[in-house]
């Protein structure tokens, strides 16, 4: 077995809630609360979940853009969370990030060439050499070398995202965290950017952590997928396993919301509607965090938080009553004699 390029072990990132005149801490937001995962070389790990489930915080905590509260991050066997400032600066060459918002992620006052060259300049390359490399990279991401003289606002959203990708590539990293890199783009442009990401992954032998809320996009690009709910990973499996035989009821409900391409199947498709809203990560439910919205929750779920366990080879789920092949969520609901709110997908 190869050594994973990235290992995350019981990572927690908590934010204090301070209120009042003396900024007393009155609570804690458990944005990321005990996440364990790994990424193999040349692999894409998809991370999906609703807004507010902590996936963005997870990505930034891995890079220590936000200091994690507890747990460890290990890059090729070396501790990232334990690295001092100088070492961290070196490690940053290996791990880069592409942001969601192509408008906010580029400094509006710097020409594109300087934006892409900046990481090189920070690490001590002279201007001429850096500019040559930027010219080559602009070509790689499908832009022209003379685009480098322009400013970010002169480009479209898709082009800006290419610029962001070029900046992430310039230091020749091994791992890139893609934080919803296509959610802000038009669907037609999304496809172009996804293709570009796949091309550069092959060419540079990159590993990706692909954070998104769009399940179709994640399915297309990922090798394995982690599903997050309220700061925790609830299911982690190979892409096909996860999409075909989800083990966690939350995954099942998410998947039921994905449109299918076959019009006949789409006509038949039913959405599983979850009851209630996403609980606050400052005050997560007891036991299994999903029990408040789970259609098959039982007494044990309210008290006992389930561990992430392997339900079949390489397929992990944090659920006391995992669903499986031949035992779908709908089956389980019927067995329990409960109602499941199914709605015609087309109405939504």
């Amino acid at each position, binding site marked *: 077995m190869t050594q994973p390029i990235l290992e995350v072990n019981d990572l927690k990132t908590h934010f204090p809630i301070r209120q009042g005149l003396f900024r007393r801490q009155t609570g804690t937001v458990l944005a990321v609360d005990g996440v364990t995962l790994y990424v193999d070389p040349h692999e894409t790990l998809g991370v999906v979940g609703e807004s507010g489930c902590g996936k963005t915080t997870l990505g930034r905590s891995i890079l220590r853009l936000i200091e994690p509260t507890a747990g460890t991050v290990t890059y090729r066997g070396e501790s990232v969370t334990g690295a001092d400032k100088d070492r961290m600066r070196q490690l940053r060459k290996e791990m880069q990030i592409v*942001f969601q918002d192509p408008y906010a992620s580029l*400094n509006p006052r710097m020409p594109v060439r300087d934006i892409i060259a900046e990481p090189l300049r*920070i690490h001590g390359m002279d201007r001429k050499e850096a500019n040559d490399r930027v010219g080559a990279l602009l070509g790689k991401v499908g832009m022209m070398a003379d685009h480098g003289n322009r400013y970010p606002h002169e480009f479209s959203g898709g082009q800006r995202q290419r610029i962001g990708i070029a900046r992430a590539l310039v230091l020749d990293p091994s791992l890139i965290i893609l934080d919803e890199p296509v959610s802000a783009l038009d669907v037609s442009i999304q496809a*172009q950017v996804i293709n570009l990401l796949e091309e550069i992954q092959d060419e540079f032998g990159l590993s990706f952590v692909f954070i998104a809320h769009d399940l179709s996009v994640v399915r297309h690009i990922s090798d394995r997928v982690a599903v997050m709910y309220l700061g925790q990973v609830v299911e982690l499996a190979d892409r096909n396993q996860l999409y075909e035989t989800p083990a966690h009821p939350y995954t099942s409900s998410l998947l039921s919301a994905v449109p299918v391409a076959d019009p006949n199947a789409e006509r038949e498709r039913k959405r599983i509607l979850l009851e209630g809203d996403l609980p606050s990560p400052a005050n997560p439910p007891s036991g299994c965090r999903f029990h408040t919205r789970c259609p098959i929750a039982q007494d044990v779920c309210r008290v006992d938080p389930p561990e992430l366990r392997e339900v079949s080879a390489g397929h992990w789920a944090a659920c006391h009553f995992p669903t499986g092949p031949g035992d779908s969520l709908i089956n389980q609901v019927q067995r329990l004699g409960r109602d499941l709110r199914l709605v015609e997908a087309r109405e939504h």
Partner: protein
Amino acid sequence: MTDLGSRQQLEMAIEAEAAALEAEGLDIEARSMRRQTWDRFRKHPVAVVSLFLLLALTTAFWVGPWLSPYTYDQVLAGLPNEGPSLSHPFGTDQIGRDLMVRVFTGGQISMTIAIVVALLTTFIGTVIGAVAGFFGGWVDNVLSALTNLFLIVPGLLVLLVVAIKWGGGVYSTAVILALLAWPVIARVVRGLFIQFKEQEFVQAAIAAGAKPGRIMFRHIIPNTFGPIIVNATLAVGAAIVIESTLSFLGLGVRPPTPSLGNIIQDYRGAIDSDPTKVLLPGLFVVLITLCANFLGDALRDALDPTSRRGH
């Protein structure tokens, strides 16, 4: 999943996109930031007029007295309270001094005070706001408390007391005004720093290994220039008015040194008999303030690279 497009299709799409952008009015050639700023500024005709008017007034205030055969404190025997004439276009004052030279010199002094106030408040406000916003934590707490302390001080009261003790000079008046006005800019700048610190392009720089100095000077400060310059411009307008008010109340620049405010004070009794002598310096106060405000508004647009107004 279908293959979403080959490399060639991708390049075609990009070219189509570039063509669409050009159709929107983007030049094929890259324009420098400075050029783009000027192009955006030109879209505001009132501001362009204001800029030239301000330059004209400034030139008149500084060159006029130097060209004039009279000085501002030269008493011309036997010529008090003259009306406008060829040799004295604004007339003369109660004791026979040429009023045009006094108004222009007064304008020069008022403008000097306004510019010094704008520079000082901008400098103090920017440094304090930047440090508070950038470092956060207890540094921010201390500096914000200080800022708020200055902000709640009743300005006019302090001015009354301080002006009696240290007032009267051109620079002392400017310093007193600046000490009262900097908290406004400090708050603006602190807000900008906090806002930009969280921006993704700053996060990207940190992810690339940038040290705090680079983040501050390469990423945050250049983006705060626009709002800071706008505030400085608006401060010029405000300072002219406040200086005039102070001098009018006798708390600002003391005669015989003229300022727009104390010339108005000289003639407030003559508003009925000889209105031009009050209205002329008043007109300059209004003009400078208006121009500064129009200029500030246009700069707000021009200095924001993401502003697409007029495209």
